[in-house]
């Protein structure tokens, strides 16, 4: 088991290095392939009608005139060990993990991301608890009461949940619960450190909106998995032993049906931690999703690199955790 975990962790680091190479390649190499040279690239970050000297200075400052491999080396070194930026009196130390400075705002990228992360994390973690509990519960009940009114109603709702986009359900939720009935007026992000109560009450609508989409998906997945599992031979064996149906369902059915859900859950949560773009935009929450959109709009390469690396870190981490959990849940994986 320990070797299994160590092996997974090593894979995780290797995977992140590959991701960094690919992302770096995409964002630094492609402009060149498209015929843009480093001078033209630098011109984007200097402001309107710049002098040639100013552009050259910017080019040197951003290191755009260096070979790609050197730039990548700087990038990696910054993340692992931190590094100095600028020279002379403007020289500043950027400690690890250093993702450099924004080309536009000259602000360090890492602290900006760390400011946005709690917003996204509150959103993603809260919603994931809601949808996991809600989706699995509805899915199991639907499977057990297959064909009844409950099953049809919940699966109909689930279909709506899967099909309706967040910017629609979010707007409807805001319209009804925030503007019309004023149950959660003036929704905005309040840090949990400031006020737990306001953090919570402002989170309810985004949570429910985000969870509705995923819960619908999970309900359908759980129902399908449960129906399949309840037809398995070992369920018949469990019944043949004379176990009460309740135990047959929970100990034998649910256990097998929920295992694949776990994989998807890890992936979904990891993906969301990198930024819940639609939900954050709908509710104007300054999370990683908003940060990403701004970075892309501004063509701010250090910010894009930073947020891509952070997002892929969460996905790879979630994957690793799921793999390890899987080994705990499914004894057949352990020996493999």
């Amino acid at each position, binding site marked *: 088991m320990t070797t299994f975990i160590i092996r997974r962790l090593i894979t995780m680091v290797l995977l992140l290095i590959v991701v960094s190479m690919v992302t770096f390649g995409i964002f630094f190499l492609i402009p060149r392939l498209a015929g843009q040279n480093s001078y033209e690239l630098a011109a984007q970050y200097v402001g309107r009608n710049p002098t040639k000297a100013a552009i050259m200075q910017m080019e040197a400052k951003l290191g755009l005139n260096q070979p790609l491999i050197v730039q990548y080396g700087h990038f990696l070194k910054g993340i692992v060990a931190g590094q100095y930026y600028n020279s002379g009196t403007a020289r500043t130390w950027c400690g690890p993990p250093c993702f450099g400075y924004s080309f536009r705002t000259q602000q360090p990228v890492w602290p900006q991301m760390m400011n946005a992360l709690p917003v996204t994390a509150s959103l993603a973690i809260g919603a994931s608890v809601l949808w996991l509990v809600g989706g699995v519960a509805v899915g199991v009940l639907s499977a057990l009461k297959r064909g009844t009114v409950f099953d049809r109603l919940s699966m109909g709702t689930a279909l709506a949940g899967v099909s309706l986009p967040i910017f629609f359900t979010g707007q409807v939720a805001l319209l009804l619960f925030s503007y019309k009935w004023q149950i959660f007026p003036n929704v905005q992000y309040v840090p949990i450190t400031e006020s737990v109560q306001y953090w919570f009450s402002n989170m309810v609508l985004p949570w429910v909106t985000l969870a509705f989409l995923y819960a619908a998906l999970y309900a359908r997945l759980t129902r399908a998995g449960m129906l399949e599992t309840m037809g*398995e*031979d*070992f369920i*018949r*064996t*469990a*019944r*043949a*032993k*004379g*176990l*009460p*149906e309740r135990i047959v369902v929970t*100990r*034998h059915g649910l*256990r*097998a049906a929920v*295992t694949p859900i776990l994989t998807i859950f890890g992936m979904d949560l990891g993906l969301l931690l990198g930024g819940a773009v639609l939900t954050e935009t709908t509710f104007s929450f300054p999370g990683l999703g908003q940060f990403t959109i701004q970075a892309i709009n501004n063509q701010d390469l250090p910010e894009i690199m930073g947020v891509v690396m952070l997002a892929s870190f969460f996905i790879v981490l979630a994957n690793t955790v799921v793999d390890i959990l899987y080994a705990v*849940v*499914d*004894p*057949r994986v352990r*020996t493999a």
Partner: protein
Amino acid sequence: MALLEVSDLRVRFDTDDGLVKAVDGLSFSVDRNRTLGIVGESGSGKSVTSLAIMGLHRNTGSTTVSGEIRLDGEDLVEASPERVRRLRGEKMAMIFQDPLTALNPYHTVGAQIIEAYRVHNDVSKREARKRAIDMLGRVGIPQPSSRVDDYPHQFSGGMRQRAMIAMALSCDPGLLIADEPTTALDVTVQAQILDLIVDLQAEFGSAVIIITHDLGVVAEVADEVLVMYAGREVETGAAREVFGAPRHPYTWGLLGSMPRLDVARTERLVPIPGTPPSLINVPPGCPFHPRCAYPAQAAAPCDSEVPALLETGPGHLAACHLPAAKKQSIWAELSARTAPSRARHAKTGPAAPGSVSEVNPW
């Protein structure tokens, strides 16, 4: 009164295509220390019968079970599902065809036996675990005290079936139903599992029903045989009677389509022509008549009159319109044609009483 008495059992499924008469008026009984073999092709109603006894058939509104299933005098058809659940595992247990899929891959073998034991016995986990280890030892699993914590995928096929048997017998049930217990196993393991069932039956004194399409299995372990076709019984009797002097064309067909070691390879197997009938539109009269080679010699019209199950010898019944003398001569001819050794059997009639495994099934 026998431990299990089934009379006029009918199981029907109402499907979109029509009413499926999966079991159509079946009667038999098994007593403690006796083994009944139920034989028939796929779809003849063997497994449905066993599931109906256990109360494990799909309990939806579209399934109806009628007739009587008396276990120790108690009618299971009339009993509440909760009552039947309590009897399951305690008074009657079942082992299934494929032990890999029948065991839950997420729980240890021990946990699954412990669970089976504790539903019906109010004992501590520790005691149940002792019982599980004891049972695993009795079914011949080496080092049971460490194997008890293994998962099913760490067991070989034969060991899994042994574990299934240990689980089924953990509560010492009076009735053990084995549904194709050796079909999914290696040939070498098959014999071991059959021996184990026979040994444990002697030890526990249970009544055993073995459901199979493998006549070799039945010949080895069964005292009585019930041949099923299209949800009905077509022939039944003591194993050596049914195999030594079969009195139904379907049984002849089954025996003829079985490979044997003592006949030259050049001898071709004789399959039964046609396919088993649809259980929605069962042929009128004798359900076997469209595939039967002898309707012309029958004493009654096979395609309109259902043959009654009549005694053709002591305790030996068959449902066929062929006159008794005709059956004897056809069988004598059939057995002489493919195997000289069998003709000897037919001439001497029922073999001398002895161990069942001595009976040559063909």
